[in-house]
């Protein structure tokens, strides 16, 4: 395709947009809602340009208008400048304190809007909701309402159960809006630093995060892979370190849900690893609202992030006086989709997942035990049923937990335990277990693998950020 942009000829393959064509020859067109890794959205209209076809001109948006042979494009006519100026004036009146808007506006000579000034931050460019839906795949936040009431948020303006704290939305947000959202948990590098400083204690390891102790052990109570989670919970409750625990329990066969338990019986009912992600944050908030204050939360890295982010951005002590959360993080490479896993097990091994005795991941193998028999396959073969969002998480060892537990790095029948804070240390000290040798290298290897994958995925997002 050969076309002319601002009197310069450009040749580019069909299927490209005017924006791509213009940028390929160094012509800058301003955009606010465009990101190369996402479907064009056409909402901010800043990339409006004039096209001429068969002698007739009209205004189109460069971000989604496909290149055509012989098209004449003008990106800087007085008409186009007028459009951009007014759009920026409208946006500046809406979001007067946003640097990105201020600088774009001043580029176009707009400094003081002629409209009533408001104090919004979100310009509704939709980058956050689209990155969450199109790339990460969890759709934790979305557009709500319509017309002038349109906004972005989590359903019912309540804590999201779907947000995995990957922070992709914060990366793409051109303003402060996402950082001000209270119901999702985008955890950026700065956030992690802040959380570590505030809640954790120990040396900072590049791969494993902040920790003071790394041990392997086998609980005297038994349980999967050493049963250390169960043991820590039981002894913690016995020693009055917390009154309740938010744990994941199997329901309806192998499916699972988060529940609050308050005694040993309850803790024991939640034994066993699930490799499933379930709604957790709404349960935590419900427990707090119901008057529970000293709660141990057991969660995957994404859930740990969510709880920490909540502690960081909200004044929980004021909302729930006496609150004391102890976070037990699990090692997690990825979690599976329940229906997908069920179908996969059935077709792969002819095993009914709901009747399985236990499932585990060990040394790159997914192992399911049913009818007294072990069936196993390569975890890598199960990529298709990995939950949305997991490829964007780089945390294998629940770096922000008070104490992290997993099977990797310790002998069979034992658990690896990483202590990261005073609360974590207290918890470990109270538990009875037989210690064993830890293989740190093995943990580091997997943690690096996960991090590398996530970094690669997040890089596509970062690359497109202006």
């Amino acid at each position, binding site marked *: 395709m050969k076309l002319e942009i601002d009197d310069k000829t450009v040749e580019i393959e069909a299927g490209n947009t005017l924006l791509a064509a213009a940028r390929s020859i160094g012509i800058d067109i301003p955009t606010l809602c465009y990101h190369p890794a996402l479907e064009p959205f056409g909402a901010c209209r800043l990339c409006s340009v004039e096209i001429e076809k068969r002698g007739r001109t009209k205004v189109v948006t460069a971000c989604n208008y496909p290149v055509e042979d012989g098209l004449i494009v003008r990106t800087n006519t007085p008409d186009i400048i007028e459009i951009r100026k007014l759009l920026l004036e409208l946006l500046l009146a809406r979001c007067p304190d946003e640097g990105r808007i201020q600088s774009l506006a001043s580029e176009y000579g707009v400094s003081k809007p002629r409209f009533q000034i408001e104090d919004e931050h979100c310009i509704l460019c939709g980058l956050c909701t689209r990155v969450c*839906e199109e790339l990460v795949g*969890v*759709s*934790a*936040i*979305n*557009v*709500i*309402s*319509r017309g002038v009431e349109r906004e972005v948020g*989590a*359903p*019912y303006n309540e804590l*999201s*159960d*779907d947000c995995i704290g990957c922070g992709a939305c914060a990366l793409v947000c051109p303003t402060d809006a996402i950082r001000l959202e209270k119901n999702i948990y985008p955890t950026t590098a700065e956030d992690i630093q802040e959380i570590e400083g505030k809640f954790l204690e120990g040396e900072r390891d590049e791969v494993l995060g902040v920790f003071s102790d790394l041990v392997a052990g086998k609980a005297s109570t038994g349980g999967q892979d050493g049963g250390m989670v169960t043991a820590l919970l039981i002894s913690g409750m016995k020693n009055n370190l917390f009154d309740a625990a938010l744990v994941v329990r199997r329901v309806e066969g192998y499916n699972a849900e988060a529940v609050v338990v308050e005694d040993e019986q309850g803790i024991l009912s939640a034994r066993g690893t699930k490799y499933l992600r379930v*709604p957790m944050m709404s349960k935590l908030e419900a427990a707090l609202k119901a008057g529970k204050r000293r709660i141990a939360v057991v969660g995957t890295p994404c859930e740990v992030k969510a709880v920490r982010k909540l502690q960081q951005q909200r004044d929980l002590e004021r909302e729930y006086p006496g609150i004391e959360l102890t976070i037990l993080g699990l090692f997690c490479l990825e979690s599976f989709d329940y*229906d997908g896993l069920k179908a996969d097990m059935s077709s792969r091994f002819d095993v009914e997942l709901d009747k399985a005795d236990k499932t585990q991941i060990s040394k790159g193998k997914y192992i399911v035990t049913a009818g007294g028999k072990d069936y196993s396959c390569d975890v890598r073969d199960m990529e298709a049923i990995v939950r949305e969002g997991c490829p964007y998480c780089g945390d294998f060892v629940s770096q922000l937990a008070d104490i992290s537990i997993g099977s990797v790095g310790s002998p069979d029948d034992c658990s690896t335990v990483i202590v990261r804070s005073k609360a974590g240390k207290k918890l470990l000290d109270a538990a009875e277990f037989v210690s064993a040798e830890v293989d740190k290298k093995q943990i580091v290897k997997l943690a690096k693998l996960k991090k590398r994958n996530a970094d690669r995925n997040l890089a596509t997002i970062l690359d497109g950020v202006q």
Partner: protein
Amino acid sequence: MAEINLKRVDEIIEGYKGEEGVLIQLLLDIQNEFNWISPEAIARISEQMRIPKSQIYRIASFYKAMSLKPVGRHIIHVCMGTACQVRGAPKILDRIEENLKIKEGETTSDMRFSLKRVNCLGCCAMGPVILVDGTYHGKITSAMVESILGQYE
């Protein structure tokens, strides 16, 4: 407020399983059955139809026929179409708001009435028109408001 019967929700969902593009129709059925779309219903649909909650919530918040809040025993729709507008619909709305001591979009504390504006009921010749539950009241004046509302307990 009717208790949300999750079994009924499941039945409605069951009727749409395996079909594409049915979310709006499904939500309309839920709305028509319960007069609102509850968080429990959304969670159920999300789980069974494998659709993220935020996408369901988005649709329910976008379309006017769907309500995310429980509504009263009787629903009053005040037509604000252009024909009704020029024949005094704003006054009718004012009068109803005054009478029920609620604003448009709200429900009385005794759950007797919910009040909604609607952009055209398509009975333009009868304006101003209000629709209470299924019944159209045409050519009404503000003086008639009280007696019309009195018909509904």
